[in-house]
Protein backbone atom coordinates (compact mmCIF):
# COMPACT_ATOMS: atom_id res chain seq x y z
CA UNK A 1 0.00 0.00 0.00
CA UNK A 2 0.91 3.61 -0.38
CA UNK A 3 1.15 6.13 2.48
CA UNK A 4 0.66 9.84 1.93
CA UNK A 5 2.36 12.15 4.41
CA UNK A 6 1.53 15.87 4.54
CA UNK A 7 4.43 18.11 5.51
CA UNK A 8 4.52 21.82 6.21
CA UNK A 9 7.50 24.14 6.12
CA UNK A 10 7.56 26.21 9.30
CA UNK A 11 9.89 28.39 11.33
CA UNK A 12 12.35 26.17 13.17
CA UNK A 13 11.14 25.42 16.70
CA UNK A 14 14.27 26.90 18.26
CA UNK A 15 13.81 30.36 16.72
CA UNK A 16 12.17 33.09 18.73
CA UNK A 17 10.19 34.85 16.02
CA UNK A 18 9.45 38.54 16.12
CA UNK A 19 6.50 40.54 14.97
CA UNK A 20 6.85 42.78 11.92
CA UNK A 21 7.05 46.45 12.80
CA UNK A 22 3.76 47.14 10.98
CA UNK A 23 2.15 44.35 13.06
CA UNK A 24 0.65 42.60 10.03
CA UNK A 25 2.41 39.32 10.69
CA UNK A 26 5.62 37.67 11.79
CA UNK A 27 9.00 38.77 10.51
CA UNK A 28 10.26 35.66 8.73
CA UNK A 29 13.03 37.29 6.70
CA UNK A 30 16.25 35.30 7.05
CA UNK A 31 14.77 33.07 9.75
CA UNK A 32 15.71 29.38 9.85
CA UNK A 33 12.90 27.22 8.44
CA UNK A 34 12.43 23.48 8.99
CA UNK A 35 10.01 20.64 8.52
CA UNK A 36 7.24 20.95 11.11
CA UNK A 37 8.48 18.65 13.94
CA UNK A 38 5.21 16.68 14.03
CA UNK A 39 5.54 16.09 10.28
CA UNK A 40 9.05 14.75 10.74
CA UNK A 41 7.50 12.25 13.13
CA UNK A 42 4.83 11.47 10.50
CA UNK A 43 7.49 10.83 7.84
CA UNK A 44 9.46 8.67 10.27
CA UNK A 45 6.39 6.54 11.05
CA UNK A 46 5.68 6.02 7.37
CA UNK A 47 9.30 5.01 6.75
CA UNK A 48 9.15 2.51 9.60
CA UNK A 49 5.98 1.00 8.14
CA UNK A 50 7.79 0.68 4.84
CA UNK A 51 10.77 -0.96 6.51
CA UNK A 52 8.40 -3.43 8.19
CA UNK A 53 6.92 -4.24 4.80
CA UNK A 54 3.49 -2.82 5.65
CA UNK A 55 3.70 -0.27 2.86
CA UNK A 56 5.52 -0.04 -0.42
CA UNK A 57 5.65 3.66 -1.15
CA UNK A 58 5.89 6.83 0.93
CA UNK A 59 4.57 9.89 -0.86
CA UNK A 60 5.16 13.32 0.71
CA UNK A 61 3.02 16.34 -0.10
CA UNK A 62 3.34 20.00 0.71
CA UNK A 63 1.17 22.94 -0.22
CA UNK A 64 2.75 26.36 -0.44
CA UNK A 65 5.14 28.56 -2.38
CA UNK A 66 8.28 27.33 -4.15
CA UNK A 67 10.23 27.31 -0.89
CA UNK A 68 8.29 24.27 0.37
CA UNK A 69 10.22 22.19 -2.17
CA UNK A 70 13.10 22.46 0.26
CA UNK A 71 10.99 20.71 2.91
CA UNK A 72 9.94 18.08 0.40
CA UNK A 73 13.61 17.45 -0.43
CA UNK A 74 14.28 17.12 3.29
CA UNK A 75 11.54 14.49 3.54
CA UNK A 76 12.92 12.68 0.48
CA UNK A 77 16.36 12.75 2.09
CA UNK A 78 14.89 11.03 5.14
CA UNK A 79 13.73 8.24 2.84
CA UNK A 80 10.39 9.18 1.26
CA UNK A 81 10.06 7.90 -2.30
CA UNK A 82 8.29 10.66 -4.15
CA UNK A 83 6.98 14.18 -3.61
CA UNK A 84 4.12 16.35 -4.78
CA UNK A 85 4.25 20.10 -4.47
CA UNK A 86 0.89 21.89 -4.72
CA UNK A 87 2.01 25.34 -5.64
CA UNK A 88 0.26 28.44 -4.34
CA UNK A 89 1.26 31.95 -3.35
CA UNK A 90 -1.65 32.11 -0.90
CA UNK A 91 -1.23 31.64 2.83
CA UNK A 92 -2.33 28.05 3.51
CA UNK A 93 -5.03 27.34 6.10
CA UNK A 94 -6.33 23.96 7.32
CA UNK A 95 -9.59 23.88 5.33
CA UNK A 96 -7.88 24.59 2.01
CA UNK A 97 -5.07 22.17 2.79
CA UNK A 98 -7.57 19.45 3.73
CA UNK A 99 -9.41 19.96 0.44
CA UNK A 100 -6.18 19.77 -1.56
CA UNK A 101 -5.16 16.62 0.31
CA UNK A 102 -8.57 15.08 -0.37
CA UNK A 103 -8.14 15.72 -4.09
CA UNK A 104 -4.69 14.15 -3.95
CA UNK A 105 -6.00 11.13 -2.07
CA UNK A 106 -8.56 10.61 -4.82
CA UNK A 107 -5.83 10.88 -7.44
CA UNK A 108 -3.17 8.79 -5.69
CA UNK A 109 -5.38 6.32 -3.72
CA UNK A 110 -3.14 5.86 -0.66
CA UNK A 111 -4.49 3.61 2.09
CA UNK A 112 -3.18 5.77 4.88
CA UNK A 113 -2.65 9.49 5.30
CA UNK A 114 -0.39 10.66 8.12
CA UNK A 115 -0.21 14.29 9.23
CA UNK A 116 1.26 16.12 12.19
CA UNK A 117 -1.20 16.92 14.94
CA UNK A 118 -0.35 20.59 14.73
CA UNK A 119 1.73 23.02 12.73
CA UNK A 120 3.90 24.90 15.21
CA UNK A 121 3.45 28.23 13.44
CA UNK A 122 -0.33 28.64 13.29
CA UNK A 123 -0.95 26.11 16.10
CA UNK A 124 -4.31 25.22 14.54
CA UNK A 125 -4.48 21.45 15.11
CA UNK A 126 -7.24 20.90 12.53
CA UNK A 127 -6.09 19.62 9.15
CA UNK A 128 -6.12 15.85 9.83
CA UNK A 129 -9.57 15.96 11.43
CA UNK A 130 -10.91 18.02 8.50
CA UNK A 131 -9.43 15.61 5.98
CA UNK A 132 -10.94 12.61 7.78
CA UNK A 133 -14.39 14.26 7.75
CA UNK A 134 -14.16 15.19 4.06
CA UNK A 135 -12.96 11.73 3.03
CA UNK A 136 -15.35 9.91 5.40
CA UNK A 137 -12.40 7.86 6.60
CA UNK A 138 -11.78 6.91 10.24
CA UNK A 139 -9.45 9.18 12.20
CA UNK A 140 -6.86 8.57 14.87
CA UNK A 141 -5.52 11.86 16.18
CA UNK A 142 -2.59 12.68 18.50
CA UNK A 143 -1.27 9.14 18.34
CA UNK A 144 1.69 7.91 20.36
CA UNK A 145 1.70 4.30 19.21
CA UNK A 146 0.59 2.50 16.08
CA UNK A 147 0.27 -1.09 14.92
CA UNK A 148 -1.16 -2.25 11.63
CA UNK A 149 -2.14 -5.87 11.10
CA UNK A 150 -3.79 -6.80 7.85
CA UNK A 151 -6.51 -4.24 7.25
CA UNK A 152 -6.75 -3.17 10.89
CA UNK A 153 -5.07 -0.32 12.71
CA UNK A 154 -4.63 -0.10 16.43
CA UNK A 155 -3.68 3.37 17.61
CA UNK A 156 -3.01 4.79 21.05
CA UNK A 157 -3.96 8.45 21.45
CA UNK A 158 -2.68 11.01 23.92
CA UNK A 159 -5.82 12.54 25.41
CA UNK A 160 -6.43 14.82 28.38
CA UNK A 161 -7.29 11.96 30.70
CA UNK A 162 -4.47 9.59 29.74
CA UNK A 163 -4.08 7.16 26.85
CA UNK A 164 -6.97 6.03 24.67
CA UNK A 165 -6.73 3.00 22.39
CA UNK A 166 -8.81 2.84 19.20
CA UNK A 167 -9.02 0.35 16.42
CA UNK A 168 -10.10 1.17 12.91
CA UNK A 169 -10.07 -0.28 9.42
CA UNK A 170 -7.90 1.01 6.56
CA UNK A 171 -8.02 3.41 4.81
CA UNK A 172 -7.61 5.97 7.59
CA UNK A 173 -6.22 9.34 8.59
CA UNK A 174 -3.75 9.58 11.47
CA UNK A 175 -2.12 12.56 13.19
CA UNK A 176 1.09 12.23 15.18
CA UNK A 177 1.96 13.26 18.70
CA UNK A 178 5.47 13.83 20.01
CA UNK A 179 6.05 10.43 21.52
CA UNK A 180 5.16 8.31 18.49
CA UNK A 181 8.81 7.93 17.52
CA UNK A 182 12.20 9.57 17.43
CA UNK A 183 12.84 10.77 13.86
CA UNK A 184 16.11 9.79 12.15
CA UNK A 185 18.61 12.16 10.61
CA UNK A 186 19.17 12.21 6.87
CA UNK A 187 22.53 10.67 5.89
CA UNK A 188 24.74 12.38 3.35
CA UNK A 189 24.25 9.69 0.67
CA UNK A 190 20.51 9.95 1.16
CA UNK A 191 20.62 13.72 0.80
CA UNK A 192 22.42 13.21 -2.52
CA UNK A 193 19.95 10.54 -3.61
CA UNK A 194 17.01 12.78 -2.71
CA UNK A 195 17.96 15.16 -5.51
CA UNK A 196 17.14 12.50 -8.08
CA UNK A 197 13.83 11.50 -6.61
CA UNK A 198 10.69 12.57 -8.49
CA UNK A 199 8.87 15.75 -7.49
CA UNK A 200 5.65 16.57 -9.25
CA UNK A 201 4.36 20.14 -9.26
CA UNK A 202 0.62 20.77 -9.35
CA UNK A 203 -1.62 23.74 -8.78
CA UNK A 204 -4.85 24.13 -6.84
CA UNK A 205 -6.56 24.72 -10.19
CA UNK A 206 -5.38 21.40 -11.53
CA UNK A 207 -6.84 19.75 -8.42
CA UNK A 208 -10.02 21.79 -8.67
CA UNK A 209 -9.78 23.16 -5.14
CA UNK A 210 -10.06 26.64 -3.73
CA UNK A 211 -7.25 27.57 -1.36
CA UNK A 212 -8.47 31.07 -0.55
CA UNK A 213 -7.99 31.59 3.19
CA UNK A 214 -11.23 31.92 5.16
CA UNK A 215 -9.61 33.65 8.10
CA UNK A 216 -8.09 37.04 7.68
CA UNK A 217 -5.42 38.22 10.11
CA UNK A 218 -6.13 41.83 11.01
CA UNK A 219 -3.06 42.27 13.19
CA UNK A 220 -0.61 40.48 15.42
CA UNK A 221 0.59 41.77 18.76
CA UNK A 222 3.04 40.78 21.46
CA UNK A 223 1.42 39.14 24.45
CA UNK A 224 1.25 41.56 27.41
CA UNK A 225 4.59 41.41 29.23
CA UNK A 226 4.76 39.99 32.74
CA UNK A 227 5.82 42.37 35.43
CA UNK A 228 9.49 41.87 36.28
CA UNK A 229 10.13 39.30 38.98
CA UNK A 230 12.87 39.04 41.58
CA UNK A 231 15.30 36.46 42.81
CA UNK A 232 14.98 35.43 46.43
CA UNK A 233 17.94 34.26 48.50
CA UNK A 234 16.48 31.41 50.50
CA UNK A 235 13.58 29.05 50.99
CA UNK A 236 12.49 31.14 53.99
CA UNK A 237 12.41 34.30 51.90
CA UNK A 238 10.44 32.49 49.21
CA UNK A 239 7.82 31.16 51.62
CA UNK A 240 7.54 34.55 53.27
CA UNK A 241 6.93 36.27 49.92
CA UNK A 242 4.42 33.64 48.82
CA UNK A 243 2.48 33.97 52.04
CA UNK A 244 2.61 37.70 52.78
CA UNK A 245 3.19 39.37 49.43
CA UNK A 246 1.57 37.14 46.81
CA UNK A 247 -0.83 35.59 49.34
CA UNK A 248 -1.02 32.31 47.41
CA UNK A 249 -0.16 29.78 50.14
Amino acid at each position, binding site marked *: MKILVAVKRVVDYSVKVRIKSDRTGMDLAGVKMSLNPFDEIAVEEALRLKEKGVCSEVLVVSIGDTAVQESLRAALALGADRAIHVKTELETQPLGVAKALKALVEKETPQLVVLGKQA*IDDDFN*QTGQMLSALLKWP*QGTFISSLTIEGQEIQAVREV*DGGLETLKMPLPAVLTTDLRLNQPRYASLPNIMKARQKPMEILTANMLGVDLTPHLQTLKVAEPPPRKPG*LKVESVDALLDRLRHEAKVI
Partner: protein
Amino acid sequence: MALLLIAEHDQEKLTPSTLATLTAAKQFSVPIHIVLIGHSCQKVAEEASRYEGVEKVWIMDHPSLLHPIAEEMTDTLLELAKGYGFVLAPSSTFGKNLLPRLAALLDVAQISDVIQIVDRQTFVRPIYAGNALATVLSQDDTKVMTIRSTAFDKAEKGSSKAPIEAPPFKPPSFPHATFVKIEKSSSKRPELTSASIVVSGGRGLQTKENFEMLETLADLLGAAIGASRAAVDAGFVPNDYQVGQTGKVVAPDLYIAIGISGAIQHLAGMQESKVIVALNKDPEAPIFQVADYGLVGDLFTILPELIEKLKMMKKADLTQK
Protein backbone atom coordinates in the same frame (compact mmCIF):
# COMPACT_ATOMS: atom_id res chain seq x y z
CA MET B 1 -28.55 33.38 15.20
CA ALA B 2 -28.26 31.14 18.25
CA LEU B 3 -25.09 29.55 19.58
CA LEU B 4 -24.45 25.83 19.98
CA LEU B 5 -22.00 24.81 22.69
CA ILE B 6 -20.70 21.26 22.48
CA ALA B 7 -20.20 20.23 26.09
CA GLU B 8 -17.62 17.89 27.51
CA HIS B 9 -18.40 15.96 30.68
CA ASP B 10 -17.17 13.02 32.73
CA GLN B 11 -20.59 11.30 33.17
CA GLU B 12 -20.98 13.16 36.47
CA LYS B 13 -20.65 16.82 35.59
CA LEU B 14 -19.56 19.30 32.97
CA THR B 15 -15.80 19.81 32.77
CA PRO B 16 -14.30 23.10 34.00
CA SER B 17 -13.24 23.91 30.43
CA THR B 18 -16.87 23.57 29.31
CA LEU B 19 -17.90 26.09 31.95
CA ALA B 20 -15.21 28.48 30.71
CA THR B 21 -16.52 27.97 27.17
CA LEU B 22 -19.97 28.90 28.42
CA THR B 23 -18.64 32.19 29.78
CA ALA B 24 -17.10 32.89 26.37
CA ALA B 25 -20.41 31.96 24.73
CA LYS B 26 -22.30 34.54 26.77
CA GLN B 27 -20.21 37.31 25.24
CA PHE B 28 -22.01 36.78 21.92
CA SER B 29 -25.30 37.92 23.51
CA VAL B 30 -27.33 35.37 21.56
CA PRO B 31 -29.41 32.42 22.85
CA ILE B 32 -27.17 29.57 23.98
CA HIS B 33 -28.03 25.92 23.40
CA ILE B 34 -25.85 23.21 24.88
CA VAL B 35 -25.45 19.78 23.32
CA LEU B 36 -24.39 16.92 25.51
CA ILE B 37 -23.15 13.63 24.12
CA GLY B 38 -22.90 10.34 25.96
CA HIS B 39 -24.86 7.53 27.49
CA SER B 40 -26.90 7.69 30.69
CA CYS B 41 -25.89 11.28 31.14
CA GLN B 42 -29.33 12.67 31.98
CA LYS B 43 -27.93 13.97 35.26
CA VAL B 44 -25.37 16.10 33.45
CA ALA B 45 -28.07 17.38 31.10
CA GLU B 46 -30.04 18.51 34.17
CA GLU B 47 -26.95 20.29 35.41
CA ALA B 48 -26.38 21.98 32.04
CA SER B 49 -29.96 23.20 31.99
CA ARG B 50 -29.40 25.22 35.15
CA TYR B 51 -26.70 27.59 33.96
CA GLU B 52 -27.64 31.16 33.37
CA GLY B 53 -28.06 32.08 29.72
CA VAL B 54 -28.71 28.50 28.58
CA GLU B 55 -32.01 28.33 26.72
CA LYS B 56 -32.02 24.72 25.59
CA VAL B 57 -30.12 21.51 26.21
CA TRP B 58 -29.84 18.87 23.51
CA ILE B 59 -29.03 15.43 24.79
CA MET B 60 -27.50 12.92 22.41
CA ASP B 61 -27.82 9.74 24.42
CA HIS B 62 -26.95 6.41 22.84
CA PRO B 63 -25.19 3.27 24.12
CA SER B 64 -22.52 3.65 21.42
CA LEU B 65 -21.69 7.09 22.78
CA LEU B 66 -20.48 6.00 26.19
CA HIS B 67 -16.93 6.52 24.90
CA PRO B 68 -17.81 8.79 22.01
CA ILE B 69 -15.76 8.52 18.84
CA ALA B 70 -15.53 11.70 16.78
CA GLU B 71 -16.88 10.00 13.64
CA GLU B 72 -19.93 8.71 15.52
CA MET B 73 -20.91 12.17 16.70
CA THR B 74 -20.27 14.00 13.47
CA ASP B 75 -23.46 13.42 11.46
CA THR B 76 -25.88 14.21 14.27
CA LEU B 77 -23.92 17.28 15.31
CA LEU B 78 -23.64 18.44 11.72
CA GLU B 79 -27.42 18.35 11.27
CA LEU B 80 -27.82 20.23 14.52
CA ALA B 81 -25.07 22.77 13.83
CA LYS B 82 -26.65 23.80 10.53
CA GLY B 83 -29.23 25.83 12.45
CA TYR B 84 -26.71 27.89 14.39
CA GLY B 85 -24.59 30.98 13.75
CA PHE B 86 -21.91 29.99 16.27
CA VAL B 87 -20.57 26.60 17.29
CA LEU B 88 -18.22 26.47 20.27
CA ALA B 89 -16.34 23.71 22.08
CA PRO B 90 -13.62 23.73 24.71
CA SER B 91 -10.08 23.54 23.41
CA SER B 92 -9.45 20.21 25.13
CA THR B 93 -8.39 17.05 23.30
CA PHE B 94 -12.14 16.31 23.06
CA GLY B 95 -12.91 19.60 21.31
CA LYS B 96 -9.77 19.55 19.16
CA ASN B 97 -10.56 16.05 17.96
CA LEU B 98 -14.16 16.75 17.05
CA LEU B 99 -14.75 20.35 16.05
CA PRO B 100 -12.58 20.63 12.91
CA ARG B 101 -14.72 17.85 11.41
CA LEU B 102 -17.85 19.95 11.73
CA ALA B 103 -16.08 23.05 10.40
CA ALA B 104 -14.88 21.14 7.32
CA LEU B 105 -18.34 19.73 6.59
CA LEU B 106 -19.90 23.17 7.05
CA ASP B 107 -17.19 24.43 4.68
CA VAL B 108 -16.00 27.05 7.15
CA ALA B 109 -12.74 27.78 8.92
CA GLN B 110 -12.27 26.86 12.54
CA ILE B 111 -10.76 29.39 14.89
CA SER B 112 -8.68 27.43 17.41
CA ASP B 113 -7.89 28.45 20.99
CA VAL B 114 -9.82 31.70 21.15
CA ILE B 115 -8.71 33.80 24.12
CA GLN B 116 -10.73 36.93 23.40
CA ILE B 117 -13.96 37.71 21.58
CA VAL B 118 -13.61 41.19 20.12
CA ASP B 119 -16.97 41.12 18.35
CA ARG B 120 -19.14 38.50 16.65
CA GLN B 121 -16.65 37.99 13.85
CA THR B 122 -13.33 39.09 15.33
CA PHE B 123 -11.31 36.94 17.70
CA VAL B 124 -7.89 36.84 19.32
CA ARG B 125 -5.83 33.65 19.42
CA PRO B 126 -2.20 32.82 20.22
CA ILE B 127 0.11 31.69 17.42
CA TYR B 128 3.79 30.64 17.34
CA ALA B 129 3.66 29.04 20.80
CA GLY B 130 2.15 32.17 22.27
CA ASN B 131 4.93 34.40 20.93
CA ALA B 132 2.23 36.49 19.27
CA LEU B 133 -1.49 37.09 19.58
CA ALA B 134 -3.31 37.24 16.26
CA THR B 135 -6.56 39.13 15.79
CA VAL B 136 -8.50 37.26 13.11
CA LEU B 137 -11.64 38.07 11.17
CA SER B 138 -14.03 35.35 10.03
CA GLN B 139 -16.71 36.13 7.49
CA ASP B 140 -17.95 32.55 7.31
CA ASP B 141 -21.68 32.07 7.85
CA THR B 142 -21.10 29.86 10.85
CA LYS B 143 -18.35 30.77 13.29
CA VAL B 144 -16.82 27.55 14.57
CA MET B 145 -14.27 27.88 17.36
CA THR B 146 -12.57 26.21 20.29
CA ILE B 147 -12.18 28.23 23.47
CA ARG B 148 -9.03 28.26 25.58
CA SER B 149 -10.38 27.73 29.06
CA THR B 150 -7.67 29.64 30.92
CA ALA B 151 -8.82 32.89 29.32
CA PHE B 152 -12.38 32.78 30.71
CA ASP B 153 -13.86 32.32 34.19
CA LYS B 154 -16.09 29.37 34.87
CA ALA B 155 -19.80 30.07 34.45
CA GLU B 156 -22.05 29.97 37.51
CA LYS B 157 -25.38 28.24 37.85
CA GLY B 158 -28.44 30.47 37.70
CA SER B 159 -32.02 30.03 38.84
CA SER B 160 -33.53 29.11 35.47
CA LYS B 161 -34.10 25.68 34.03
CA ALA B 162 -33.88 25.19 30.29
CA PRO B 163 -35.85 22.50 28.44
CA ILE B 164 -34.03 19.29 27.51
CA GLU B 165 -34.63 17.70 24.11
CA ALA B 166 -33.12 14.86 22.13
CA PRO B 167 -32.02 15.39 18.53
CA PRO B 168 -32.51 12.36 16.26
CA PHE B 169 -29.30 10.29 16.43
CA LYS B 170 -27.71 9.52 13.08
CA PRO B 171 -25.10 6.79 13.37
CA PRO B 172 -22.23 7.15 10.93
CA SER B 173 -22.85 5.70 7.51
CA PHE B 174 -19.16 5.04 6.81
CA PRO B 175 -16.35 3.03 8.43
CA HIS B 176 -15.14 4.57 11.68
CA ALA B 177 -12.87 3.93 14.62
CA THR B 178 -14.07 1.99 17.63
CA PHE B 179 -13.13 2.44 21.24
CA VAL B 180 -10.92 -0.25 22.76
CA LYS B 181 -9.87 1.13 26.15
CA ILE B 182 -8.69 4.11 28.08
CA GLU B 183 -5.82 4.05 30.54
CA LYS B 184 -6.57 6.87 32.90
CA SER B 185 -3.69 8.22 34.87
CA SER B 186 -5.49 7.99 38.17
CA SER B 187 -4.92 10.84 40.54
CA LYS B 188 -6.67 12.04 43.64
CA ARG B 189 -5.28 15.48 42.97
CA PRO B 190 -7.10 18.44 41.46
CA GLU B 191 -7.40 18.40 37.69
CA LEU B 192 -4.35 20.04 36.10
CA THR B 193 -6.04 22.65 33.93
CA SER B 194 -8.33 23.92 36.67
CA ALA B 195 -6.16 23.55 39.79
CA SER B 196 -5.33 26.71 41.70
CA ILE B 197 -1.78 25.55 42.40
CA VAL B 198 0.41 23.54 40.01
CA VAL B 199 3.78 22.04 40.86
CA SER B 200 5.70 21.11 37.71
CA GLY B 201 8.92 19.22 37.27
CA GLY B 202 11.41 18.95 34.43
CA ARG B 203 14.46 17.05 33.33
CA GLY B 204 16.36 18.55 36.28
CA LEU B 205 14.71 15.97 38.54
CA GLN B 206 16.74 13.27 36.76
CA THR B 207 14.69 10.18 37.73
CA LYS B 208 11.16 9.00 38.29
CA GLU B 209 11.99 8.37 41.95
CA ASN B 210 13.20 11.95 42.41
CA PHE B 211 10.11 13.22 40.64
CA GLU B 212 8.09 11.64 43.45
CA MET B 213 9.37 14.37 45.77
CA LEU B 214 6.95 16.62 43.92
CA GLU B 215 4.09 14.45 45.16
CA THR B 216 4.88 15.38 48.76
CA LEU B 217 5.09 19.03 47.83
CA ALA B 218 1.84 18.87 45.88
CA ASP B 219 0.09 17.11 48.77
CA LEU B 220 1.13 19.88 51.15
CA LEU B 221 -0.13 22.56 48.80
CA GLY B 222 -3.24 20.79 47.54
CA ALA B 223 -1.72 21.18 44.10
CA ALA B 224 -1.93 19.38 40.77
CA ILE B 225 1.26 18.04 39.19
CA GLY B 226 2.52 19.06 35.77
CA ALA B 227 5.68 18.41 33.80
CA SER B 228 7.81 19.54 30.92
CA ARG B 229 7.97 17.51 27.75
CA ALA B 230 11.45 16.31 28.70
CA ALA B 231 10.08 14.86 31.96
CA VAL B 232 7.29 13.07 30.10
CA ASP B 233 9.61 11.78 27.39
CA ALA B 234 11.93 10.44 30.09
CA GLY B 235 9.00 8.50 31.54
CA PHE B 236 8.90 10.31 34.92
CA VAL B 237 5.17 10.95 34.50
CA PRO B 238 2.33 10.11 32.06
CA ASN B 239 1.73 12.12 28.88
CA ASP B 240 -1.26 14.02 30.21
CA TYR B 241 0.97 15.85 32.70
CA GLN B 242 2.68 17.78 29.88
CA VAL B 243 2.24 21.53 30.06
CA GLY B 244 2.99 23.60 26.99
CA GLN B 245 2.36 24.51 23.38
CA THR B 246 1.48 20.96 22.49
CA GLY B 247 0.30 19.79 25.91
CA LYS B 248 -2.04 21.39 28.40
CA VAL B 249 -2.44 25.08 29.01
CA VAL B 250 -2.71 26.08 32.65
CA ALA B 251 -3.11 29.39 34.45
CA PRO B 252 -3.25 28.68 38.18
CA ASP B 253 -2.84 31.23 40.98
CA LEU B 254 0.55 29.67 41.68
CA TYR B 255 2.82 27.72 39.31
CA ILE B 256 6.03 26.27 40.70
CA ALA B 257 8.54 25.16 38.03
CA ILE B 258 11.25 22.88 39.38
CA GLY B 259 14.21 21.91 37.24
CA ILE B 260 12.54 23.28 34.11
CA SER B 261 14.62 25.47 31.79
CA GLY B 262 11.68 27.43 30.37
CA ALA B 263 11.75 26.64 26.64
CA ILE B 264 9.25 28.73 24.68
CA GLN B 265 7.13 25.60 24.12
CA HIS B 266 6.83 25.17 27.88
CA LEU B 267 6.17 28.85 28.58
CA ALA B 268 3.30 28.73 26.07
CA GLY B 269 1.42 26.51 28.50
CA MET B 270 1.95 28.38 31.77
CA GLN B 271 2.89 32.00 31.25
CA GLU B 272 -0.62 33.21 32.08
CA SER B 273 -0.30 31.87 35.64
CA LYS B 274 -0.85 34.57 38.26
CA VAL B 275 2.31 33.89 40.28
CA ILE B 276 5.22 31.90 38.89
CA VAL B 277 8.00 30.46 41.05
CA ALA B 278 11.11 28.94 39.47
CA LEU B 279 13.70 26.73 41.14
CA ASN B 280 16.72 26.15 38.95
CA LYS B 281 20.46 25.85 39.46
CA ASP B 282 21.21 27.86 36.33
CA PRO B 283 20.75 31.60 37.01
CA GLU B 284 20.51 32.20 33.26
CA ALA B 285 17.66 29.72 32.68
CA PRO B 286 14.93 31.44 30.61
CA ILE B 287 12.29 30.37 33.14
CA PHE B 288 13.55 33.20 35.36
CA GLN B 289 12.41 35.72 32.76
CA VAL B 290 8.78 34.89 33.50
CA ALA B 291 9.17 34.01 37.20
CA ASP B 292 7.82 36.37 39.84
CA TYR B 293 10.06 34.67 42.39
CA GLY B 294 13.18 32.83 41.37
CA LEU B 295 15.40 30.77 43.61
CA VAL B 296 18.76 29.75 42.19
CA GLY B 297 20.23 26.58 43.60
CA ASP B 298 20.35 22.81 43.59
CA LEU B 299 16.85 21.41 43.76
CA PHE B 300 18.10 18.39 45.66
CA THR B 301 18.85 20.63 48.63
CA ILE B 302 16.10 23.23 48.05
CA LEU B 303 13.22 20.82 47.60
CA PRO B 304 13.67 18.87 50.88
CA GLU B 305 14.07 22.16 52.75
CA LEU B 306 10.97 23.59 51.09
CA ILE B 307 8.97 20.50 52.01
CA GLU B 308 10.16 20.56 55.64
CA LYS B 309 9.43 24.25 56.08
CA LEU B 310 6.03 23.98 54.48
CA LYS B 311 5.20 21.16 56.88
CA MET B 312 6.21 23.36 59.79
CA MET B 313 4.16 26.20 58.39
CA LYS B 314 1.08 23.97 58.08
CA LYS B 315 1.57 22.71 61.64
CA ALA B 316 1.82 26.24 62.94
CA ASP B 317 -1.33 27.19 61.01
CA LEU B 318 -3.20 24.33 62.67
CA THR B 319 -2.13 25.16 66.21
CA GLN B 320 -3.07 28.79 65.65
CA LYS B 321 -6.63 27.88 64.70
